[in-house]
């Protein structure tokens, strides 16, 4: 069994009517097994105490570098990974420990779009069957109506109806991603976790898919958790943005707050490091941080960013900063936030 220090009580927050999903101190640890007997020798703390609210109809962008735990959060919310601690509430309902059968009806409401449109579609199935499967599995359509539903989905994502007899390999990356989106929409979900949905696509196709996601959100009143490392895409689609580093949220705020007035040094460095598609700005001053992201199995003491932070002070090495400013407003977990 995994032993955990007693869980800190979740910060009490007013449960506003428009909160769709709430995370309180969410933790997802993966055991590190070693030796012949596979004894647990430690944990990779992929998500280590994350509290977030996602409001109805908004897009919360989740950014950070590889290994920061952003995808694990998405997967944990959908219960594709088992959380180690903390609480997941969907519409006020604690779903953290729901059984598979109790989760089943929830799955029609919560869906996922994956990064890789090449491996997330079954190559042996025709598009029509890929889209039919979720509807039949959840009794959402009868055999009489299912074909009309497939057409509706294809129309929504801009794939010609005539293509439904084709196999996934006959499509380009962008079209496959559209099919992945159609599949996620098949059950009329309310909430979609988009896990790097455009990272594998070409620039001109990225724009097509981002525009489509935005349009669908408008038409169907969807709520997105948009996970990405490309800041441009996140800025374009998000209402609010959370920045993660080594399993923790280091800053959260509206898109304007994050991009115009970032408070956390890591956010500033991330924005600054992003190559700007304007050669006139190449001479601008850049802060290049040294070193790599430390291992989440053994995160640094105090502030986790202190090993790479250009503004590090003694206090940062010992004391872990809290995400100050509350979960609703613009908040940064830094002792010396700007």
């Amino acid at each position, binding site marked *: 069994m995994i032993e955990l220090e007693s869980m800190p009580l979740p910060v009490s927050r007013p449960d506003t009517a428009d909160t769709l999903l709430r995370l309180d101190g969410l933790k997802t640890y993966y055991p590190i097994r070693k030796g012949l007997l596979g004894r647990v020798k430690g944990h990779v703390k992929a998500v280590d105490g994350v509290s977030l609210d996602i409001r109805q109809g908004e897009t919360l962008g989740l950014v950070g*570098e*590889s290994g920061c735990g952003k995808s694990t959060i998405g997967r944990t919310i959908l219960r594709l990974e088992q959380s180690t601690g903390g609480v997941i509430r969907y519409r006020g309902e604690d779903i953290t420990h729901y059984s598979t059968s109790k989760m089943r009806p929830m799955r029609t409401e919560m869906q996922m779009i994956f990064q890789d449109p090449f491996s997330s579609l079954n190559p042996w199935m025709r598009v029509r069957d890929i889209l039919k499967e979720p509807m039949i599995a959840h009794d959402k359509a009868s055999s009489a109506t299912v074909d009309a539903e497939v057409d509706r989905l294809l129309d929504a994502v801009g794939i010609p109806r005539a293509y439904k007899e084709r196999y996934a390999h006959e499509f*380009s*990356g*962008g*079209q496959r991603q559209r099919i992945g989106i159609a599949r996620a929409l098949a059950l009329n979900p309310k909430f979609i976790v988009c896990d790097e949905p455009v990272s594998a696509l*070409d*620039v*001109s*196709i*990225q*724009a*097509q898919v*981002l*525009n489509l996601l*935005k349009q669908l959100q408008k038409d169907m009143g969807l709520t997105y958790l948009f996970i990405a*490392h490309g*800041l*441009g*895409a996140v*800025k*374009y689609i998000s209402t609010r943005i959370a920045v993660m580093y080594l399993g923790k949220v280091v800053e959260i705020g509206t*898109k304007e707050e994050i*991009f115009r007035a970032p408070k956390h040094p890591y956010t500033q*460095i*991330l*924005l*600054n*490091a*992003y*190559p*700007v*598609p*304007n*050669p*006139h*700005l*190449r001479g601008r001053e*850049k802060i*290049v*941080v*040294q070193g*790599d*992201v430390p291992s989440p199995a053994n995160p640094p003491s105090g502030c986790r960013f202190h090993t790479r932070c250009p503004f590090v002070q003694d206090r940062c090495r010992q004391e872990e900063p809290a995400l100050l400013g509350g979960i609703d407003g613009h908040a940064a977990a830094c002792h010396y936030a700007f």
Partner: protein
Amino acid sequence: MSNLLEVEGIETVFRTERGEVTSVDGVSFTLKAGETLGIVGESGCGKSVTSLSIMQLLGKTGSIRKGEIRLNGRNITGLAESSMRQIRGSEVSMIFQDPMTSLNPVFTIGNQLMESIMLHLPLTGKAAQDHAIEMLRKVGISRPEEIMNEYPHKLSGGMRQRVMIAIALSCEPKLLIADEPTTALDVTIQAQILDLMKKLREETGTAIMLITHDLGVVAEMADRVIVMYAGQVVEEADVFTLFDKPLHPYTAGLMGSIPHLDGDDEETLASIPGTVPPLQQMPSGCRFHTRCELATEKCAAEAPPLLEQAEGHRVRCWAAQGELDIKSSTLTLLKEVTT
């Protein structure tokens, strides 16, 4: 200054089960010593095959059917494999996108670094080792002596790419071909690597051919840029002209598709409709006409040539060359997208 590299009308073909396909079709460009040339385009546009053609790493199925590649004035097209081996690594070297797969997992970093040093430089034993350690230090690796004995899997992605750069630059090549060198890396690590490439470029005066799909990286690094589409060069200009005044609708479309970090919110992104046509089914006329908003009958029927519109600014488009009678409003619209 004379040209370090001259590529003239190369056509690279691959034999496949479904017949021969032309990946690179009549690509020409030049590169001066110390210059950085960016090659941009989407997947399948032929940018990587262009660089592999220069290195003549086309495998059993690929070959250069036409054209000439001259390095320092010497024609290297069709050189024997043994002569190419002399050139690779010493005069021209290459770094690849994926530092995970381009290092051999069963040899130590030191082994792999010293292999190319001993092959191309008159150094052996201790001297070769010292040079290898010096190279690791140059690319910003701390504890280089220890890293020499490590295997690639012990290193992070950024470290591996640094090692790749160290290997590539160890024999002081005149030309470094960097094929998507930072695509697999995180933003902060990408910034480190780009910074490093700039520093090394200043120190050694190596010319760089930078292949990428990221217009941000190009804007940051390149002196001149070539835009490729479906195996052809569609536009070439110095980096400032290209970003300020792109002439080809494809270039303009690419620039309109990037969400910007600064500036106001965009309601919808300009996107290019459709996808890159497959190599076996190239459209007639201008290869971009099926996706182009300005396309006319002429575009569908006749392939436009690559012509110089202003000094050093070449473009392959009937509209940009003033051959089409299109409403000026459409062209202004095109300009707005890009500003």
